[in-house]
């Protein structure tokens, strides 16, 4: 399946991964910076990329920073902050067109690597620390982002469910940090947190496009000003066990539709040899329109527009989400629990098994056509310390039997039922 493979290298603490390919009209760059998720660091780490995108040593004013991107043929630049296993990862992304398609004299790949290196390691400073003006403005931005999560009820319910499920471990912390911790941060403290972050983090730079490791190495060496040392790597996650009895959490807000979410533990993470069977479990339960949740909650009972499950393979958690009429709470919970029980009983039709395999195989093959998806897939393996690639995972999936799925189903345990409902009526769980 994979026509091209990643070339690997290292520059001091920075791990390099280069995917030479002529398939795209662009170069795609991703930089992953990860440290363990902790209460004390989650907020400064989340705030850092917001400040870094305000300016660099060469482009200290935000307007000049943005104009620089525009001049690189509107290079796409952005970042994400998320949790993977027990780590908080900041991912910077840059994509830029290959000079071949424009009448440009600039070597665009070099400009792109330079830019990314400068964003991470040479920010705009004043008096040896971040610019106060940027830090204060970005504190406001992050605060608004955190407060805005509740506007999107689907996302809010999903985050609250995980928070309730993991309330006794770092994974409860939101990737964007905590509002109350923002107040205590200023330009000096944040700069110190940034320096420590840079010194402690696991660093992976990915480049995909019509290039080679040989070409990228000197560019990255010139662009990234990092302290010496050798690369560190990611530790496997702690997998939690479900509560003896599932907890039910009901929250009330001004909503019209109820959001029903469930959190389950699986005891299996990305690196586990049972992971392919768990992927099949999730596919059969709720990842597709032919899955049990969609068919039974939506198509048969007409209770919902969406009803699905999602696997967080890095933390070994499975979540279920649906939007329902508030009065249908008991009915929906009953139908969903019945699907979980049916999976435990190994009620897996041959046709559904084949469909699920075909769909998962399709997803794996499709991601070959997106540079960023190939990068993310590879990074997931690097993070989990597995040497899977698309081909080997396909083979493993192909070999999964209904018995293996049923076996995995025995280790999937319901932990938390979270229901977001209106403020009116009812005393507890739906009425």
């Amino acid at each position, binding site marked *: *399946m994979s026509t091209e493979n990643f070339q690997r290298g290292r520059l001091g603490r920075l791990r390099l991964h280069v995917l030479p390919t002529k*398939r*795209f*009209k*662009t170069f795609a760059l991703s930089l992953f910076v990860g440290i363990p998720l902790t209460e004390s660091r989650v907020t400064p780490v989340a705030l850092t990329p917001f400040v870094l995108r305000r300016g660099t040593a060469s482009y200290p004013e935000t*307007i000049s920073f*943005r*104009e620089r*991107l*525009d001049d*690189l*043929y*509107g*290079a796409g630049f952005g970042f994400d902050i998320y949790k993977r296993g027990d780590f908080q990862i900041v991912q910077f992304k840059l*994509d*830029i*067109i290959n000079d071949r*398609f*424009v009448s440009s004299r600039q070597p665009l790949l070099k400009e792109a690597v330079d830019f990314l290196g400068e964003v991470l390691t040479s920010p705009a400073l004043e008096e040896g620390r971040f610019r106060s003006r940027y830090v204060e*403005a970005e504190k*406001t*931005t992050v605060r*608004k*982002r955190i*407060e*805005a999560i*509740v*506007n999107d*009820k*689907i996302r809010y319910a999903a985050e609250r469910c995980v928070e309730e499920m993991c309330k006794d471990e770092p994974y409860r912390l939101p990737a964007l940090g905590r509002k109350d911790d923002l107040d205590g941060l200023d330009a000096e403290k944040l700069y110190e947190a940034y320096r420590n972050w840079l010194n402690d983090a696991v660093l992976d730079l990915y480049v995909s496009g019509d290039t080679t490791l040989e070409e990228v190495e000197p560019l990255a060496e010139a662009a990234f000003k990092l302290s010496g040392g050798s690369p560190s790597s990611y530790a496997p996650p702690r997998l939690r066990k479900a509560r003896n009895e599932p907890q039910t959490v009901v929250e009330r*807000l*001004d909503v*019209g*539709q109820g959001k029903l979410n469930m959190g389950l533990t699986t005891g299996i993470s990305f690196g586990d040899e049972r992971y392919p069977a768990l992927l099949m479990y999730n596919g059969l339960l709720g990842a*597709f*329109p*032919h899955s049990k949740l969609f*068919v039974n909650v*939506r*198509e048969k009972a*007409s*209770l*919902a*527009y969406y009803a699905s499950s999602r696997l967080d393979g890095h933390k070994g958690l499975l979540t279920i989400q649906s*939007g*329902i*009429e508030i009065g249908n709470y008991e009915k929906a919970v009953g139908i969903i629990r019945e699907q979980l029980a049916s999976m435990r009983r190994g009620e897996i039709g041959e*046709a559904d098994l*084949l*469909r699920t395999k*075909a*769909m998962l*195989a*399709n*997803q794996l*093959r*499709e991601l*070959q*056509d*997106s540079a960023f998806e190939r990068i993310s897939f590879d990074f997931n393996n690097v993070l989990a310390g597995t040497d899977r690639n698309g081909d080997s995972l396909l083979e493993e999936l192909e070999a999964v039997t209904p018995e293996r799925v049923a076996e995995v189903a025995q280790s999937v345990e319901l932990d938390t039922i979270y229901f977001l409902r209106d403020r009116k009526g009812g005393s507890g769980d739906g009425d």
Partner: protein
Amino acid sequence: MATKRYDKLQETLYYEKLDNGLDVFVLPKPGFTKTYATFTTRYGSIDNRFRPAGGEEIRVPDGIAHFLEHKMFEEPEGDIFATFASQGASANAFTSFDRTVYLFSATRNIEANLATLLDFVQNPYFTDANVEKEKGIIVQEINMYRDNPDWRVYYGLIEALYSVHPVHIDIAGTEQSVRSITKEMLYDCYRTFYHPSNMTLFVVGGVDGEATLELVKANQAAKTFPEAGPVERIFEEEPLQVREKRKEIRLPVSLPKCLFGYKEEPAPRDGSGAIRRELVTRLMFDILLGPSSSLYQELYEANLISDGFGYEFNTGSGYSFSVIGGDTRDPDALVAKVTAALEEAAQKGVAEAEFERARRKRIGAYLRMLNSPEAIANEFTRYRLNGGDFFELVGLYESLTPGDVNARLREHVNADRLAVAVVRSDAV
């Protein structure tokens, strides 16, 4: 069959209009694993009044195009998702103001999946029971959007701008309108708008151009369709004035959401006039409101906008309007500052250097988009329905001048045609 070579882009497009009127396009992407196909009918939420060939005028319930889209997936032998899944294809559909699109993406069994796509869309199967069952699902879809403040403020603005044109009606309709839909109405709409001569198939990805066209031809030749008659779509005249200057909606939000925009007369939809206007408008907003504009930075520093601030331009049959805004602590201040800046720019004109930068950025974004089969299929079809060629946008961009932007500013920015929509927790 014809082929068109776009040398600069290194792309070759295969095209044929079949005997039954279906437009078929194939864009082979050598080296791509995936194939993506869209089957589009020029029929969307705005087509709610029409006279079918030789028939009486019909006014159908709001949300019926979207309802029809949902119902197409059901076949006598069951849910078509299961068939696609067996063939390893991920299928979906969406309804917009002026089109309904059925699609799949797959890496294997492309022939079978293409046949499934054509066959299920060309085989309506509606019963009283299956129509009734869908209502519960769609009502939950409507309720989901009702709780979504971004959706509410967006529709709030269109409702403030338009009083007659059906663009202001929610694509999914209301619970009441959806409950009134019957299978007979669905068949009426289907017969009127799903004739091959009203549809376009676009296939892009790891396929052979010629072989794919032949396959589609054979599939269509094996089916019979009634003669296509002219369909008359009826739109009442929309006044140029906005319906309300300001609309407030109450919903719990962390900060008010504010969108505003200008309504204008739609461009003639033949030739490249509408496309040119769209491109010029995008450049205009990029220059004046984009993240590298001085206004953006000023608003950001004043804590009047955050990252979600943006703009778009929406145009189609009988409507044309801009949408500007985002979350803000002070909607009135935001509207005042942005409109003042736009009015000033309409007087003074834009700088040549800023125009060049914006154009370069747009061309870059366009070329990056050509990596994505999904974007190619959807954008190509959209431009085609508007009378343009998606693969010739670079040339069009290159032909524009700062003078075009300045003229466009004077045309579009008109304080009398401005409406504002606000979602806030404390609205009355």
